[in-house]
């Protein structure tokens, strides 16, 4: 961690009404959270970056967050296999889903090619696609976040 990162951290804490800091390195993990009264985190002013996304050379102890954690209420669909991520069933076909698509649980969102096999990856929730985290034709590892989905109230 260098001075610049520290300064950023301090500024962040100073500017924000709520403060959430997570620092981890070499086996020590410290998480400090301070909220004015008990407002839920979701009320954080839009525009202020989520504090946990400050890059602090942070190798996690257990499962490393390989992508910034989503706002509360969003679900993350992770890759169940290792392979190559494709958004459409064939190079000239339309993508399964787009940003903003409303999807149903069990609906195919993408395929991951592994050993010449196309693994169809289904949504685990009813919801709206709010982030697509991997570029088409990129390799993905096990557990890598693929989509963020804002669940819809179950019908």
């Amino acid at each position, binding site marked *: 961690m260098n001075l610049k990162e520290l300064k950023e951290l301090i500024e962040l804490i100073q500017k924000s009404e709520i403060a959430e800091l997570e620092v981890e390195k070499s*086996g020590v993990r410290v998480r400090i959270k301070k909220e004015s009264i008990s407002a839920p985190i979701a009320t954080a002013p839009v525009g202020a970056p989520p504090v946990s996304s400050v890059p602090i050379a942070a190798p996690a102890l257990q499962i490393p967050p390989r992508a910034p954690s989503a706002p509360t209420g969003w679900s993350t669909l992770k890759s169940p296999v*290792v392979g190559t991520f494709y958004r459409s069933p064939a190079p000239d076909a339309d993508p399964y889903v787009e940003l903003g698509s409303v999807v149903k649980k069990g609906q195919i969102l993408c395929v991951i090619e*592994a050993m010449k*096999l196309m693994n169809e990856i289904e949504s685990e929730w009813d919801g709206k696609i709010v982030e697509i985290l991997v570029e088409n034709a990129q390799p993905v590892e*096990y557990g890598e976040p693929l989509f963020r989905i804002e669940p819809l109230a179950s019908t």
Partner: protein
Amino acid sequence: MFKKILVANRSEIAVRVIQACHELGIKTVAVYSEVDAKALHVRLADEQICIGPPDAALSYRNIPNILSAAEITGAEAIHPGYGFLAENAHFAEVCQSVGIKFIGPTAENIALMGDKAKAREIMVKKGIPVLPGSPGVIAEEKEALEAAKNIGYPVIIKATAGGGGRGMRVVTQEEDLLSAFQTAQAEAKTAFGDSGVYLEKYFIEPRHIEVQILADERGRTIYLGERDCSIQRRHQKLIEESPSPAVDESLRREMGAMAVEAAKSVNYCNVGTVEFLLDKDHRFYFMEMNTRIQVEHPVTEMVTGIDLVKEQIKLAAGQPLDLRQHDVRLRGHSFECRINAECPDTFTPSPGTITNYRPPGGLGVRVDSAILCNSTVPPYYDSLIAKLIVHAENRDAAIARMRRALDEFTIEGVKTTIPLHKRIFDDPVFQKGRISTGYLERFISSEPARVSGT
């Protein structure tokens, strides 16, 4: 030569393979389960791919994910280490079918040596001595007498349905056979409801001696001396040494020639180990062949000066063996202590976080480990966390060196087998090299009862 190798393993052997690759100028891909994200092998490799959850069946044994990882990283070969997929003929076959080189022998070699009955049959054909025994269940007294005569006394009568010593009888001379045979049958009947028994050669204080071999694709095969792995607990090796205190130059040549013959008889290629049982009269018997690099390979490296993992990779790349038998000269003596994360008295595993780690150093001391300060020993895998290897001019000097290295070794946070190793290396019987596969159980039971060790 390969440009990039995927290492399909974890812990010290993954680190060992990555070290060898880097010394050969080969890039490495580490694969890891979620619990190993911060492991040393992941740090040391050039690329890292998470292949699954902690359960090894879903990660380190997950063939599709491992092959996909090789595919997306462009690795040309996979080194399986030992354990996990190292002796999985199916995996070797799939690797071959997708054009990725499996660093080990052929799938056929693996399958054949994995079938113990078939391997034994081949060895018998080639005139290699195998463990003598009756071909199957013996029902008649006459049959038993004949089988025992063929095997040679002492023999052991075992219940086919048996276990736990019941239905077992050791017979040292012919006149005792029939009565023992009847008792064993009766005992087997009572204990297991099945009076079936068979005969096997009984060995008094045998040693486990194994011969390291190297073989290239053209069939050139050499042996690299032997390892004495007699210090075992429930068939788990704990201490290995090379050379064996029981093997002299002429026996070494004889066993070496047999090991080479065994390998050649199946067109074996890559590194391999032929395991023999050596009896008190220096007769040896083929037990099995291990078709992988072994945990205890370092003791052979120390006395021969040959880097077995580098040789293994070169052989897998199709390079001819550039060593000749006469290049292999043993120098000094080497021991390996397996440091397991387990209670040194009860042998229960001791996973946890390592709060302090300082390996011993100095002349003739080698440590193969993947331990980092503050790293965790997860409960999902083998308890082997480090191998302490020493080399010195002779066996006594190597014992002295191991004792001082064990004293220097600091591992805090988990219990380890270090205290047990210290006690064994302090034992005059061990120091004199009077060891056999029964040594360790006897040594442990002869010790005063102890509270949980440090």
